[in-house]
């Protein structure tokens, strides 16, 4: 039974985690190779099983009940189509991160703080996906949160990382609480925690609606939905880079899995207003995430904010799917759902590449601030190549994979005038505009990220002396880039693999794609829209080769090296280059006043005073200021007040205890 094998692999991961501390006495490099290699093997096993289950090679339908956890409950595990898709996603990311870490982990300063938690983190994510009852789901979820928290805290001597860990822990606990309440509502008065029972039960409208809200809080906070995203850009960059890649590329997807599982599968038929909530949050998340990303100077934080953006795009797709599902339009719902899941998969691929690249840059230069980098394309050609590919993919440019999923979401939007509700008629085009805006901003964001980091001249001695990544890292990055390209030019097979999921969740599926001529994808009908990544790719390839050939054969191929022209006044000082902040300045000037309340204060010394002029730029995180600062203030104020309780006399404490007792007795009396 495939699920048994998956659980064996998960148990193996736990065993690796338990044995990890023992290997630490050996030489660091060997211990890392051993542990990460074993993790890669376990993840490969699960990946193969999940692929086989998804493609229908093995029957994975049955539920396995293990006598674990609470004695009268047991723990249920099952692989259905949805779980198989996310197992593939989790373990593909897991294999890549583990192999990357074989090289990258050698530079880890404190391997003892990462190695034991890493396999447990992978195991936790896998368990969340295969769990088939609320109890095991929540335990696995909490496992995933706590192990990742431990790795966020790996470099805890840095005060910023400690703050990140604190915020993450608070948000994760809050999220789990919401999930607990959601499952409590779904289980109802009988308290049957198995997913099968929840699926079968009929839920009242208010129960289902509340569950949606709680899932948006619980899973949304883990996925990074605005305004619950504040921990994400702090915590993801704080962890070691391969863990950052897993958290951004994979753990946010596990959160999306939780949302899809409950909202599409367990909560019963959706009401149309659910999609309004999800679409609104998704659109805001996409735009706000990328606006923040384009302003960041820290490369890893930039990538974390771009994760927020992509989660928003996935939620736009999910919102559309909910809207169509609520109106019993199975075909369009399948298109939107497939697009959303496809985008989640794509994001896990290219975000892993980008975080791996950021890790390689960090190892080579010791810097995350892109203002201190530059010119790395000559010193780190392999990393630069893969990172460029990742940038192209995440900026949704054809023929890579990011474009295909966003194209499918746009096609789903074009089907939505048929929706009967007026609210959706106004909202969906706005969501489409936000999606297009976010995609365009992502282009600007990644031109800036790549251009400042890898192009130009080095802005610091560290950047000038950088070394290219090791073979493991660059090999993994290039393999993932190859996957991005293959998925981008042959999306048909991915779409067909997602067929059973949309059958399961929205009761319909997109037309089969893999037998179409020239491997084009046709979401609805050929007269409506079609796209052939393969053909576009071939066209581009052939015309590029043709252009190079013609010009080199029939014209000049001579090249002369000379100093840069720069309008006749080249300056050898690298500080005269355009910086990351100056690149973002036009965008900040246009969008900043609205999105960040950005202010620029210039203080000029009076004439004759030789002291330097100052320019102070302030950006405010409005989400933090609006939601979190007041809450934190209230909590602090209450804590301050309660502080008095610690300095009372013994008589006061005794009377307090007495009062509490009387109060409780009165309550019991009234209640009974």
């Amino acid at each position, binding site marked *: 039974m495939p699920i048994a094998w998956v659980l064996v692999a998960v148990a193996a991961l736990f065993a690796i985690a338990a044995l990890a501390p023992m290997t630490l006495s050996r030489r660091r490099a060997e211990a890392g190779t051993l542990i990460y290699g074993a993790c890669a093997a376990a993840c490969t096993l699960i990946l193969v099983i999940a692929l086989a289950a998804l493609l229908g090679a093995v029957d994975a339908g049955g539920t396995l009940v293990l006598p674990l956890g609470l004695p009268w409950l047991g723990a249920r595990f099952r692989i259905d189509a949805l779980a198989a898709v996310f197992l593939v996603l989790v373990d593909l990311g897991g294999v890549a991160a583990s192999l990357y870490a074989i090289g990258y982990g050698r530079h880890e300063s404190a391997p003892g703080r990462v190695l034991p938690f890493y396999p447990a983190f992978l195991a936790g994510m896998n368990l969340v996906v295969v769990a088939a009852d609320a109890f095991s789901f929540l335990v696995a979820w909490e496992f995933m949160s706590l192990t990742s928290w431990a790795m966020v805290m790996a470099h805890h001597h840095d005060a910023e990382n400690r703050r990140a860990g604190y915020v993450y822990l608070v948000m994760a606990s809050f999220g789990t609480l919401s999930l607990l309440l959601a499952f409590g509502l779904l289980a109802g008065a009988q308290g049957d925690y198995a997913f099968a029972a929840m699926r079968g039960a009929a839920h009242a409208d208010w129960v289902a609606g509340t569950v949606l809200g709680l899932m948006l809080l619980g899973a949304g906070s883990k996925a990074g939905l605005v305004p619950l995203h504040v921990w994400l850009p702090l915590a993801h960059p704080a962890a070691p880079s391969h863990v950052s890649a897993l958290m951004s590329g994979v753990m946010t997807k596990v959160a999306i899995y939780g949302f899809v599982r409950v909202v599409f599968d367990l909560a019963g038929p959706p009401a149309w207003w659910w999609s309004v909530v999800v679409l609104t949050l998704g659109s805001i998340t996409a735009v706000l995430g990328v606006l923040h990303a384009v302003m960041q100077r820290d490369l890893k934080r930039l990538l974390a904010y771009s994760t927020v953006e992509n989660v928003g795009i996935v939620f736009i797709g999910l919102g559309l799917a909910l809207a169509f599902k609520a109106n019993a339009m199975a075909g369009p719902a399948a298109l939107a759902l497939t697009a959303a899941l496809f985008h989640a998969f794509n994001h896990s691929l290219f975000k892993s590449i980008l975080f791996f690249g950021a890790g390689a840059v960090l190892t080579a230069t010791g810097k995350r601030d892109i203002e201190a980098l530059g010119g790395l*394309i000559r010193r780190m050609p392999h990393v630069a190549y893969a990172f460029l590919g990742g940038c192209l993919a995440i900026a949704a440019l054809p023929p890579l994979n990011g474009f295909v999923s966003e194209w499918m979401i746009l096609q789903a939007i074009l089907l939505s005038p048929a929706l009967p509700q007026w609210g959706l008629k106004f909202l969906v085009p706005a969501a489409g505009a936000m999606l297009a805006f976010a995609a365009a901003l992502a282009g600007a964001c*990644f031109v800036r990220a790549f251009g400042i980091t890898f192009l130009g001249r080095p802005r610091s001695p560290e950047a000038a002396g950088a070394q290219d990544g090791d073979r493991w890292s660059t090999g993994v990055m290039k393999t993932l880039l190859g996957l991005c390209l293959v998925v981008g030019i042959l999306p048909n097979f991915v779409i067909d693999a997602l067929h059973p999921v949309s059958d399961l969740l929205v009761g319909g599926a997109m037309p089969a794609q893999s037998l179409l001529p020239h491997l084009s994808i046709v979401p609805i009908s050929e007269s409506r829209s079609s796209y052939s990544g393969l053909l576009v790719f071939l066209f581009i390839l052939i015309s590029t080769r043709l252009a190079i050939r013609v010009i080199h054969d029939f014209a000049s191929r001579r090249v002369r090296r000379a100093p840069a022209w720069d309008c006749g006044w080249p300056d050898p000082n690298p500080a005269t280059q355009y910086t990351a902040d100056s690149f973002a300045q036009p965008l900040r000037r246009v969008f900043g006043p609205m999105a960040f309340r950005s202010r620029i204060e210039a203080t000029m010394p009076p004439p004759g005073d030789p002291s330097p002029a100052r320019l102070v730029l302030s950006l405010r995180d409005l989400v933090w200021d609006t939601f979190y600062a007041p809450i934190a203030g209230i909590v602090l104020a209450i804590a301050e007040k309660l502080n008095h309780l610690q300095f009372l006399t013994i008589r006061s404490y005794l009377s307090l205890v007495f009062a509490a007792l009387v109060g409780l007795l009165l309550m019991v009396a009234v209640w009974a």
Partner: protein
Amino acid sequence: MILDLLVQGAQMILVLALAPLLLGFTRTVKSRLLRRRGPPVTQVYRDLLRLVRKEAVLADDASWLFRNAPYAIFSATWVAAALVPTFATGLHFSWAADLIVVTALLGSSRFFLALAGMDVGTAFGGIGSSREMLFSTLAEPAMIMIVFVVALVAGSTQLSEIAVFMVDHATLRVSLGLALIALIIVALAENARIPVDNPATHLELTMVHEAMILEYSGRHLAVIELAAALKLLLYMSLIGCIFVPWGMARPSSGFLPLVIGVATYVVKLAAGGFLLVLFETSIAKMRVFRAPEFLGSALMLGFLGTLLLFVSRSF
């Protein structure tokens, strides 16, 4: 089948051959409107040939990306231009990509252009790239909104289908009018024309496009100039294909319609080029930070058109 392939190939060659002519035509007409004699119409071809024969001078700090970007820019633009129906609809490969893909292909070419501008590490290149990306953050969503309008009216994002629909079911619609204005604004911005950017300027702090390609010379510059010419032609063809689709040959309709198609296409290009120049000579270039408002109006127009269509299918 063979004929289909021939027609498709002919279109690829045709757009490549006509692009410099269109650019040269606009320059000549503009000079005449400014009471100058101006260069001959074929001057752009001569410039390109001269550039191609010269050696390429690379800055010391230029990387492999700098050398390869021109070809990537050119091929993405060429493929996009070849996918827009010009003189015939239903070309053999027309289903390979729709209007959204054409938009995104132009995005790919812009991505490489902006990176190439930053490669040498000069302040001019950076300023050009930064502003180009600012414009694109408004122009691209505006373009997607235009796609929405057209696709909702015609029920397809395939350009061939759209052209056929517009010929067969042509009616005046408010939303299409909004989309046309938005498309013209986007086209002006994307091709670095007045009032957003001045194609004739050099060494000026407000320039955008020219700043990015300042370090290019020789064959690389020629390839980029050709790509820019192709882009102008592409937007002209796009406006022609969506809003004035008359005269295009239908699939497998014989030789004569094809000839008529080519002839009307050339006439459309000439008319479009003349109107462009007339507009350019009658307006001043705007400050660079006014351009976002100009482009934002295109986005709003496109969005308004889409909303009208969502709310009522009859506008």
